[in-house]
């Protein structure tokens, strides 16, 4: 009985130490990261699904819905290369600038119009959360806002 108690006690303390160690290493390496993050194309429309390192079911659903709209409603633009679909982890050290660039507070979809390597116009579509599992309403919302950014 005492052996089981001690095994549980030290097992849990080990898990605590490993968790804190993992968090420390991750935080340290994030602060000293020098890698190159996701680069957006220099020209065209980019539809980006931003997500955190841990993806919840709702976050995955947002990504799936947006990808479906891009493929079904903007298939021609996608094939011609005028539109690009991206999935970006905004918590990855080299991608953290996107948080400030587009004011990201949680998993979301951002539509950007790019020209000569710079953003010309962009919209963050946070209302995807209001239309979650909404089917046609989500599709209509995404399509409407992607269309708005596509207009020159």
């Amino acid at each position: 009985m005492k052996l089981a108690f001690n095994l549980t006690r030290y097992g849990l303390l080990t898990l605590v130490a490993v968790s804190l160690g993992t968090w420390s290493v991750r935080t340290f390496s994030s602060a000293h990261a020098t890698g190159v993050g996701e680069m957006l194309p220099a020209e065209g429309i980019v539809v980006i699904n931003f997500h955190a390192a841990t993806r919840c079911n709702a976050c995955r659903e947002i990504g799936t819905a947006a990808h479906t709209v891009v493929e079904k409603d903007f298939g021609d633009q996608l094939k011609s290369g005028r539109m690009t679909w991206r999935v970006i982890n905004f918590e990855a050290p080299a991608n953290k600038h996107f948080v400030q660039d587009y004011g990201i507070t949680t998993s979301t979809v951002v539509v950007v119009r790019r020209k000569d390597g710079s953003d010309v116009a962009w919209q963050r579509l946070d209302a995807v959360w209001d239309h979650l599992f909404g089917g046609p309403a989500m599709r209509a919302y995404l399509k409407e806002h992607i269309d708005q950014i596509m207009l020159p």
Partner: protein
Amino acid sequence: MAALAAALWLGLLTAISPCPLATNIAAIGYVARFSQGNGRGRTWLPGLLYASGRALAYTVIGGVITWGLLSAPLLSSFLQEHMNQLLDPLLVLVGMALLGMLPGLPSFGKGGGGALNEKLMSLGLVGCALMGFVFALTFCPVSAALFFGSLLPLAVKEQSAWLVPALFGVGSAAPVLVFALALAVSREAAGRAYQRLQSAERWIAPASGWLLIAIGVWMSLHLTLRLF
């Protein structure tokens, strides 16, 4: 009035979203543990302290952002990235402390009274408020969307940096408040059955400790170590 109701509703939605639901279940265990140490008329106190802690945390965040001290994206990103990973070892340690598993520390409330026991129980009550405050700072994508995406714009629109976030906090503690209220009502109504309730409380102490440990271990494996 509609804005205040909306704030409360958004808080309720937050309470049942994945991360806050897990922490609220952990809090119910903790609140149950410290409710039994109080007099019959004060059973609700730990639950109320927990809700106050949550309300205070959201009010502070609301104030910090509306005063422009920090940007919502930066704060949201920081809290989502770090707080969950810091919370899971804390839950395991608090659970272990409740069970008397931390080397060199007595378990909370054990030992049949005395000054040390009373001190530990008072510490437990402060812990309820602290727990509410810390749990409120652990954001997941859904709760971040509700707070930063829906609640804060509402607070700004209504020019209510305090009341709207505070009501959101109360709503987000609803499961714990309902539990504390049910516990208080059942105790008052129990009357003759009070002795039976006291014997039931013998298993509440270890159950609450194991509940905190189980949730802490799950969060640690899922959110920090990302094993599944």
